[in-house]
């Protein structure tokens, strides 16, 4: 029996460079009103969300070098931390991940506005709000 899921590995191999460049676009923030997030900050924010992604992993993901696939939750978590749900790169990313988010561009822009307000809040408020926001995007309770 094979140790690894070969189809998943092959699929990830085929899309990881494109995923990497989308992730980088999200972090750099090319959308309207978006701003760049540093790798260190993104790593810390993802950690707060409950996802262990180190700064060097971020760099390698963006370069399409990591062998381990990034899960849907982490992809969305990444976009949440960068307030980039309305960016074209996020739609492309979800397409690559095979997930459809049935929201309009206006809705996503509204969501990003909320994320920017959320960023300005102190940590205790962020923690309460973030639990709810992730649920509203993916229907998942964060760990």
């Amino acid at each position, binding site marked *: 029996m094979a140790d690894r899921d070969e189809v998943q590995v092959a699929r990830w191999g085929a899309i990881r460079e494109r995923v990497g460049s989308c992730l980088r676009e999200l972090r750099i923030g090319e959308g309207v009103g978006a701003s760049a997030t540093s790798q260190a900050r993104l790593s810390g924010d993802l950690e707060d969300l409950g996802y262990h992604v180190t700064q060097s992993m971020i760099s390698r993901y963006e370069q399409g070098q990591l062998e381990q696939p990034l899960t849907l939750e982490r992809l969305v978590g990444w976009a949440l931390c960068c307030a980039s749900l309305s960016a074209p790169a996020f739609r492309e990313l979800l397409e690559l991940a095979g997930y459809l988010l049935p929201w309009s561009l206006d809705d996503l822009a*509204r969501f990003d506005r909320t994320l920017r307000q959320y960023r300005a809040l102190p940590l205790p408020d962020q923690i309460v*709000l973030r639990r709810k926001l992730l649920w509203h995007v993916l229907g998942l309770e964060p760990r």
Partner: protein
Amino acid sequence: MAMILEPERAAQLVADRLARPAAGGAGAEALKKDWIVRRTLEELGIHCEADAGLQDLKGFMIASPRGAEIVVSERLGQDERLGVYAHLLAHALLEQGEEGEEGSFFSRLEYVEGREPAERKGSERKLEMVADALAAAILRGRLDGTPRYAYRHKREVGAAGLRPRLGRFWLELCHRVSLMLFWHSPKYQRLRARREMSYLVRRVEHLVRTAYAC
């Protein structure tokens, strides 16, 4: 997917229920009002909860196809909590588009006084002023103390024919002018909130409807 939030219905129902007199003293009344509002919102599918973790926020509302929810700070007193519920509903009403159209996502954060974002645009301050007036009307249980189009967006469809249409045109014009004044003048907001004014508006509307058979 549609958003699970009916702000018009929620605001109307909350106002109607708050308008009913409560038995007991002032404390019991506040307690009861808090319970009534929460119960009404839950009845309409808006999940309500209190959280001890909020610091700069009094509360917030999020609505999407996944559901609608209001979270308020556990530290708030009953009156403050009521104010937050009403204010959130007022914003949901105001940010709902013409003809009741809406997106799939709505959110609103209510800040503790003095913790609001420093730079607020003029349009945001005006929105806040109007939301204050609308929230006060909800809490008084008198939504009719505000212009109709502030809390009811759907156009009415009535009898066909030139005369009824003309009647509806006049009414719509009056309601729109009233709404415009409401957005721009705190004095008009106070005037419109008076019972005599609501009575006058009802009488004029009744007369127009009778005269134009609409």
